[in-house]
């Protein structure tokens, strides 16, 4: 008895659309989880998997290539992760590739990163256990970055004062006339040297961070890996390093200069005057310091950029607050 005529076409369209939406959704999710495509298995062992769970993504050189299938506890210090890798990677991933655990973004899910090693090696086969690398905690890295930054500031400041001292040729001139000139110069040179030493140390620790970053170690690594940030940082370090080199040659020049001054003094020659009249050395020193300044500026800019990156915001806010507190304490103490 056809009461309100029902439209079976509409009903069919309605039901089929619903089913299609469901099937599509499930298919997309399944494809994401590698449930349908053909896959093969690779394994890696860790001491600590940092909350990695089955289903987390596996990336090779940043490309989504699979998921974690299961996590087995082998013994009290060894945990094995079994990864399902898409078949297309079968020709790509080598036996000596390195597996590490990172984070997708700063607060995201854990991910497994497989990075290629520089050396050639055989292609990894089904069931192979790849090398694994302990990841660096993000906090430590940030601490290191921050410390390096302050170090560089100090160096820059020191170098600046030195240069200013040398630059003010009037004072220098009068100082050079003084008996104690060699002593003072020696002191300046010592200052420069210690500054250079510090710069060298800084550069070394910087490089460590940079290489970590480049290898995509840890969360910051993954975060920074594909950004220009790493490149900028590296550039800054290179600049600072070259300045360090220049500072070395400068040091040599100053050393010879000091020797010359000494000789002049001993011999009573007037070359000292001529030497300092010639402003070439001062210009050189100035240029070097400018370079350092620029390098430091670049780094500062990068740090600034880092600060503005929302992921690190919390960290720097905390730092700023600490500083403020200390300042306040100092102020109250001085009053």
């Amino acid at each position, binding site marked *: *008895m*056809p*009461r*309100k005529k029902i439209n079976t076409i509409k009903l069919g369209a309605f039901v089929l659309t619903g089913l299609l939406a469901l099937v599509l959704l499930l298919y997309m999710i399944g494809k994401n989880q590698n449930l349908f495509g053909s896959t093969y298995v690779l394994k890696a062992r860790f001491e600590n998997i940092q909350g990695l769970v089955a289903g987390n993504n596996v990336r090779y050189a940043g490309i989504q290539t699979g998921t974690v299938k299961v996590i087995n506890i082998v013994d009290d210090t060894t945990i094995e992760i079994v990864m399902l890798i898409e078949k297309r990677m079968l020709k790509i991933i080598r036996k000596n590739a390195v597996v590490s655990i990172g984070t997708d973004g700063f607060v995201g899910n854990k991910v497994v990163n497989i990075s290629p090693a520089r050396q050639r090696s055989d292609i990894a086969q089904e069931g192979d256990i790849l090398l694994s690398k302990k990841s660096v905690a993000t906090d430590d890295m940030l601490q290191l970055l921050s410390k390096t930054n302050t170090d560089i500031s100090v160096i820059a400041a020191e170098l600046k004062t030195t240069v200013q001292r040398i630059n003010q040729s009037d004072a220098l001139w009068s100082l050079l006339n003084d008996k104690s000139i060699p002593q003072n110069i020696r002191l300046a040179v010592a200052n420069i040297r210690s500054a250079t030493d510090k710069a060298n140390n800084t550069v070394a620790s910087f490089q460590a961070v940079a290489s970590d970053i480049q290898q995509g170690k840890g969360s910051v690594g993954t975060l920074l890996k594909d950004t220009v940030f790493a490149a900028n940082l590296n550039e800054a370090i290179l600049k600072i390093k070259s300045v360090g080199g220049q500072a070395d040659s400068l040091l040599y020049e100053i050393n010879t200069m000091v020797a010359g001054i000494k000789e002049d003094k001993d011999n009573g020659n007037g070359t000292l005057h001529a030497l300092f009249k010639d402003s070439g050395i001062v210009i050189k020193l100035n240029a070097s310091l400018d370079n350092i300044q620029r390098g430091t500026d670049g780094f500062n800019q990068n740090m600034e950029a880092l600060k503005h990156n929302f992921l690190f915001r919390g960290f720097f806010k905390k730092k700023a607050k600490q500083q403020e507190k200390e300042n306040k304490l100092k102020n109250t103490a001085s009053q």
Partner: protein
Amino acid sequence: MPEEATIVQSDQLISADTANAVSILHLYKSFGNNHVLIDFNLAIKKGESVVVLGKSGSGKSVLIKCIIGLLKPDKGTIAVFGKNVSEIKEEELDKLRAKVGFLFQSNALYDSMTVRENLEFPLRRHWIKVSQVEVNKMVLEALDDVGLAHTVDMMPVELSGGMRKRIALARTLILKPEIILYDEPTTGLDPITGKEIIDLMNDIQEKYNTTSLIISHDMNCVRMTSDRVVILVEGKCYANDTWDRLQQNKDPKVKQFFE
């Protein structure tokens, strides 16, 4: 005590089952502590028109719902055309119901269906093999019987109370039932419309020679339609006689209906 003629001797009244369209024996029905029917007995011969008279709430509707199998009796047997309603299987009951028309007190028209669909419903549901042409013909014939052929595509809400009653009657007629059970057919209608319905019932009785069980407390209706009147008091068949003789009866419980 009622007079001799009206005293119901149950067993004597119920003759051979096959001769009777309906025979009810020792029927008991109660809802919790509300004992509605207590040892009720009644036999209706084929072609006979019997009116059941009773006060409101005395269990008249319960009685005919038991007959059609809508309610299960607690005890006793109800035989319709010799078949025990409370014991036969569902399919057989359905077949039996195709032969029994039921006019509900509240009409029970399906208000989501048009008049035509209302009438088609029992036709299609009873596994009766008929073509659409025949269905249309039967619908119009049944509507003609009640004089409402023009309402065929209307909805029940568009009809007046009397028209609805007649459509409901047409719906009971469409299967050409051998027994029709009327539950208070004139209640709630104005006297003129009530008279029309009564005339209609008599026409049908004449035309199709149906057996009728009419429930009513409308004395006009009782007088005009009954071959026999049964008075239901306190769950029992208290009196059982023709209208004329019951009218003469001096028993107070009988008399109160005729005042």
